[in-house]
């Protein structure tokens, strides 16, 4: 169990760092768009589409990483008073509902990708008119990772409920 948790978390960590770095091209591309509009009198063809692709990919790929870091917000005003064991049991129940949902979503997103790929759909958002499938790959990867990290969290909660490994 330890090994599977660790390997999931390693992949999630690497993807998270990649996602965090996407902010750099997002900033530069958007600044370049403003610069070329005013200084060169011609807005770029690509900045808008590249911009929203990077924005979406940034936070979607970061979902699992944020879960790993325990930064998805919780309201602990009441639950703070529960025992660690009770909290672990509540988490287990929640993950048991969420994981099937995330798996289902991943599956449908995969279908969604497949539709876009096999019909060679394009975004129609700008003159650049990118194919839709690369962004849909990001959806699939993000939700698969989100499901996997939820699974890792489930395993950690089970361990906590049994009172193993985590003294606090």
């Amino acid at each position: 169990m330890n090994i599977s948790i660790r390997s999931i978390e390693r992949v999630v960590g690497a993807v998270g760092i990649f996602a965090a770095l996407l902010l750099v091209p997002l900033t530069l591309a958007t600044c370049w768009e403003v610069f070329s509009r005013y200084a060169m009198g011609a807005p770029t063809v690509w900045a808008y589409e590249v911009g929203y692709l990077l924005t979406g990919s940034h936070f979607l790929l970061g979902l699992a990483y944020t879960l790993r870091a325990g930064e998805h917000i919780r309201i602990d005003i009441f639950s703070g008073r529960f025992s660690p064991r009770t909290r672990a049991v509540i988490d287990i129940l929640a993950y048991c509902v969420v994981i099937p949902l995330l798996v289902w979503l991943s599956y449908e997103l995969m279908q969604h990708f497949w539709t876009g790929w096999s019909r060679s759909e394009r975004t129609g958002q700008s003159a650049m008119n990118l194919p839709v499938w690369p962004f849909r790959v990001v959806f699939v990867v993000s939700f698969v990772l989100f499901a996997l990290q939820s699974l890792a969290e489930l395993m950690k909660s089970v361990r906590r409920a049994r009172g193993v490994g985590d003294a606090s």
Partner: protein
Amino acid sequence: MELLPFLMLPMAFVLMFLGVQVVYSMMITALVFGLFTFGNRVVFQFVEKIEDLSSNFVFAAVPLFVFMGAMLERSGIADRLFEAIHIWTRRLPGGLAIATVLMCVIFAASSGVIGATESVVGLLTIPVMLRYAYDRGLISGTICAGGSLGTIIPPSVVAVVMGPLADISVGDLLYGMVFPGLIMGALYVVYIFVVCSLRPKYGPRIASEPGDPRFGAKVWITTRNLIPPVLMIFAVLGSILLGWASPTEAAAIGALASVLLTMLYRTYSNTALFEALLKTLKVTSMIMAVLLAGTLFTGVFIGGGGINAANQAIAKMQLSPWVLLALMMLILFIAGFFLDWISIVLIFVPIFTPLIKTAGFDPVWFCILFLIMIQTSYLTPPMAPAIFYLRAVAPPQITIRDMYRGVVPFIALQVLTMVIVMIWPALVTWLPGTMLKFK
């Protein structure tokens, strides 16, 4: 009348209060009720919402504004700002507290979220104020109130999230909050000045010391420390307000400028940049996850007929528009006891805004009132993020009682701001209209 959608709210609240992550609480609720209302088709709705939300370029402003703040917090700029401001205000009654508020205003104008800002400001100014024997309640109130100005002073991440939910432009919201934000900051300053003049013990005046810089030196320190960040703020807010750049583009300029600024002050390091990027990712994903789950939630709520039912119920009760407004504000105030801002915005903006439009109010004005109410919820115990952040950085001689006592006058000032904005809606609506003519 369809009552089923209304059961979604209690279910989501129960899950949240059990300590389940907000994003999961909303997803689970949306799933259960979605399956009940739409059957298996609900998943297609979810897929569509995921694609819509992640293809919306407006939300790029969220990570960019968060990053701008994260970078500046690590840059040591706070020390320079405080130095530059307090050499001018230190001789006033409550001068250090006034300098703290002014510094918070500048910080709020250069980043979009509260929290880390408050910690930076607190770590820096609490020891100084304690050394000069300021009242501990006043210290707490100043830090909590000043540190949470980020919501109401543009740019504000809350506004970026709120605009699309309420179906109004983010730009209009950012214009609309300029005067209310400044009024709130000004009220804080006036209050501190008055209370310290009446009771000099609260914030004693500091006598001039032999080591004090002369006038010329003061001007030089101010020029060096204050002008570059203020220029950056004008570049960002100015380009939004003058319509030269969209909020998203201005946010990108600000993000770049914040890095350049740390280079100018020689505090840049690759580690600091990397840490700021990781921090930005976590904050952004947290906000966007709740936003995503919230859209799934409201999608099911609206699809199940929730908004129509609410409209009918209110029509039946025959509330006058102002009573309706007061009722909503009361609900928000109470919700603020228990919920964080992102949950409040996600749950109540989509439900309240259509009702407000039907009642004949201006939605931008309503959203500004909403933002002010979120401010009070930061300071109001028991769920008071501002106090949590303060506790993390305050030395032990400042007790929790000092904090609770200290925030009360500032909550009153926030309510006063809200009343002012209610009486003179032009404070909100004048600027967007005027700026539209310039473009």
